[in-house]
């Protein structure tokens, strides 16, 4: 290796890895929805900015996030959407492009006693819909996903088929769930979901 080559950083960025983690799965997700006649729908929602927030739980963020910071396992807001991940840890989902003003606004409120970090590349959002989507997920998930137990505006961090994810039940469609796998696990989770949903194809 020449000295010139050694000093030049090599950027490995294959053409198929430039977009969202599951952009190559659009056709397979569409085929699944068609084959199950809508019983299991899987869609990637890539257009979100993700912000990791560490702060005092009493921080006055109501004007920015639409309410006080939620306790672990609870969700507030719509856009931005705030998930309680731990006693002093939250994940904020906001429309892509709004992260800079949102980060500045949060920084002003929490001051030096916390942190706001743009983690948009960390996870992707997968929407599961259809009457059988919770049954499919339950094959690889130990928590109780019955709508009576895991309901609107709740979230949970757990394992799906041994991969760490954040699960989120939104208001609106009561059976639908959002699944936030790590970007590097997204294709594994998608493959697992497609396989787990095979039996609901007609």
């Amino acid at each position, binding site marked *: 290796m020449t000295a010139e080559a050694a000093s030049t950083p090599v950027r490995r960025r294959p053409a198929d890895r430039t977009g969202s983690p599951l952009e190559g799965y659009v056709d397979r997700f569409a085929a699944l929805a068609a084959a199950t006649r809508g019983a299991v729908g899987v869609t990637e929602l890539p257009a979100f900015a993700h912000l990791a927030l560490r702060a005092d739980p009493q921080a006055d963020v109501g004007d920015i996030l639409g309410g006080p910071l939620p306790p672990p396992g609870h969700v507030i807001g719509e856009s931005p959407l705030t998930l309680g991940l731990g006693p002093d840890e939250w994940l904020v989902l906001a429309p892509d492009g709004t992260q800079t003003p949102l980060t500045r606004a949060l920084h002003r409120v929490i001051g030096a006693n916390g942190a706001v970090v743009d983690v948009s590349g960390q996870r992707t959002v997968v929407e599961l819909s259809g009457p059988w989507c919770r049954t499919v997920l339950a094959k690889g998930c*130990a928590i109780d996903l019955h709508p009576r137990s895991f309901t609107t505006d709740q979230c*949970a961090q*757990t*394992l799906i088929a041994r991969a760490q994810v954040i699960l989120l039940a939104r208001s609106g469609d009561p059976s639908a769930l959002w699944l936030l796998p790590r970007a590097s696990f997204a294709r594994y989770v998608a493959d697992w979901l497609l396989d787990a949903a095979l039996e609901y194809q007609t």
Partner: protein
Amino acid sequence: MLIECPWCGPRDETEFHYGGQAHVSYPDDPSVLTDEQWARYLFYRDNPQGRFAERWCHGSACRRWFNAVRDTRTHQIVATYRTGESAPVT
């Protein structure tokens, strides 16, 4: 087996990691300890038959350490509580 995380509620055992005996306090002044006293702090732990206060970490979810009282004969988790709190049962 389900373990009740003080932050997340009951979760499957596979989400947790074991962290050894709880309430082992760091010596006030380690520099005055003899080698034997330091070794006892580092390596010697209780091994009771019965209820044992232990540290566990909910690594797959909230990533918080907490304490649990487990019966070493039955593996039943009798109680879980947050770090900094004292054991609710003995």
